[in-house]
């Protein structure tokens, strides 16, 4: 945090703080329990931490971390007749030669290209709300709302709005433009789905940006204003450097959101079509696992998705670190 003290986001006494601090400065209860005044509590208190973490430990180890290893291992075995047999890299070779998976990878590239837009739009809107554009209170509440709606609901609503004989087309025909096959044209459909995703989620990033602004030292903004800075100069020289950590957080969470929470939209709006043009790795995994009955191939796709996320996350953090150092 370069600027300002973190402010409490909660009205009650305690606040969300960095967990690491709590870990480092914790009181050592074991030492206290060993004093002769409480000999009978000794055994129970020593076991207590393990009792408290036991359910969480079992669930996270058994149902999150272990399946990750299991899945990677599984991706090197075969499907169908070769079920359980080691097949080396066959699944990965199948994946890369599958035109549908190639489209899914190309769409990931498209998402990466659109990522700066998906971050800049809520960032700009948050800046204007922070600078108290008329109606700023209402904007915050309204913009955030679609972010809490299920992709299924959002997708269903846009299915109605974007149908070929639907309202949006009759609207643009009304102003003299031809109808667009929003969900049926392979060249258009992916942009439509991504557009709806951004419509539905920009409020999430907006709220995170606003939380970042609440930690911004107001005297910095006042000083910049007194020096006659334009809004553009203020954004470039004051806000971006001061909010670098928030911007990094939004980049990473938006990317994760694009790669892992568009299943509902694709499932409802296009089912991956037309012509496989709206496939993403997550949808591919689901189809291979369920409909195609090729779980080992799906596991290979899962591993690739995990690697993509890892690489994109690390690259972004490295880029933003470097940008932060140059300032």
């Amino acid at each position: 945090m370069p600027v300002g003290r973190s402010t409490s986001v909660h009205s009650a006494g305690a606040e969300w703080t960095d967990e690491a601090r709590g870990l480092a400065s914790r009181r050592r209860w074991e030492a206290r329990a060993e004093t002769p005044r409480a000999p009978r509590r000794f055994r129970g208190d020593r076991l207590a931490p393990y009792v408290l973490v036991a359910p969480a430990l079992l669930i996270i180890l058994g149902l999150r971390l272990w399946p990750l290893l299991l899945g990677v291992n599984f991706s090197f075995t075969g499907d169908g007749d070769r079920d359980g047999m080691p097949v080396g890299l066959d699944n990965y070779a199948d994946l890369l030669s599958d035109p549908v998976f190639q489209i899914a990878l190309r769409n990931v590239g498209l998402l990466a290209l659109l990522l700066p837009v998906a971050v800049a739009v809520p960032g700009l809107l948050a800046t204007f709300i922070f600078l108290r554009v008329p109606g700023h209170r209402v904007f915050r509440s309204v913009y955030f709302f679609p972010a809490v709606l299920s992709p299924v609901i959002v997708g269903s609503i846009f299915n109605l709005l974007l149908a070929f004989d639907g309202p949006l087309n009759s609207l643009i025909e009304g102003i003299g433009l031809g109808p667009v096959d929003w969900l049926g044209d392979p060249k258009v459909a992916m942009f439509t789905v991504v557009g709806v995703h951004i419509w539905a989620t920009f409020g999430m990033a907006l709220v995170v940006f606003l939380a970042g602004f609440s930690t911004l030292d107001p005297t910095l903004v006042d000083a910049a204003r007194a020096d006659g800075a334009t809004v553009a100069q203020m954004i470039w020289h004051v806000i971006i450097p001061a909010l670098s950590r928030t911007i990094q957080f939004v980049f990473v969470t938006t990317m994760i959101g694009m790669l892992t929470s568009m299943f509902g939209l694709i499932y409802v709006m296009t089912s991956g079509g037309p012509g496989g043009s709206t496939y993403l790795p997550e949808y591919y995994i689901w189809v291979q696992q369920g409909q195609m009955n090729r779980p080992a191939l799906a596991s290979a796709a899962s591993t690739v998705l995990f690697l993509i996320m890892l690489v994109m996350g690390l690259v972004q953090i490295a880029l933003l670190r470097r940008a932060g150092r140059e300032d």
Partner: protein
Amino acid sequence: MRGPRASTWIVAVPMMALALATIYPLVFTANVAMKTRHDYILDRFSPAGSLNWDNVVTAWTSAGMARYFVNSLIVVAASVALLLLFGSMAGFALSHLRFRGSRALFLGCLAALFIPFQVIMVPLARTMADAGLIDTYPGLVLAYVAQFLPFTIYLMASYYSGIPREIVDAARIDGNTVYGVFRRIMLPMGSPALLSVGILDALFCWNDVLIALLMMPSAQHRTLMVGVTSLRGQYSSDIPTFASGVLIAAVPVLVVYLVFQRQIADAVTAGSTKG
């Protein structure tokens, strides 16, 4: 930008247009739900003359939305209860107790936070099938708890670590066991965080479709979101009934949002500005 100047309106007007574009799709859907099929085909945009609840009743009864609604309520309630219980227990231990392996557990928790469901869904589905938990309520609840527990623990631990140790020490001197401190100090003092995290967890579970499709494939076990997706095929020529089903699934979220907007924003932004 103190006081509305001409330049601020250059920004404010597009922002108002965007706000309208944000609300309009839901308003449109609600309006369609109130129309008869005939009215909808004649004119999609005009306001429904009167409130016609027939479509909503059809969606609720003959389309089975009532059944799906109850399924979702059961699963969400059980999942959130377990998430808050396990999450606050582990969060308390990680933030206030010292024990062997606590650091490793915390790091494991953070790592799990970054494993998306899509990456582990194939082996998880296998494990669940082997355990006979596919298409059962406990199976889906367990899948949700596993999915959202790392996040819940992380938020509870960071909230609890803001509770001063002096309070905890005082309770210890008064003769409380570790469990007593958890029950009498941590649970009551952590209630704002339990509320925020609980609401967000409830929204996550309520809104999910992928995990539910995978874990609860049979028709009578559909959750509300899976139900909405099946409604589309069932009522493809009866758009007002379909819109009513969408509305039934959206209204509870709207109500929760209007009441708890601040808590949701707190939970979403926790961890974004610190560290």
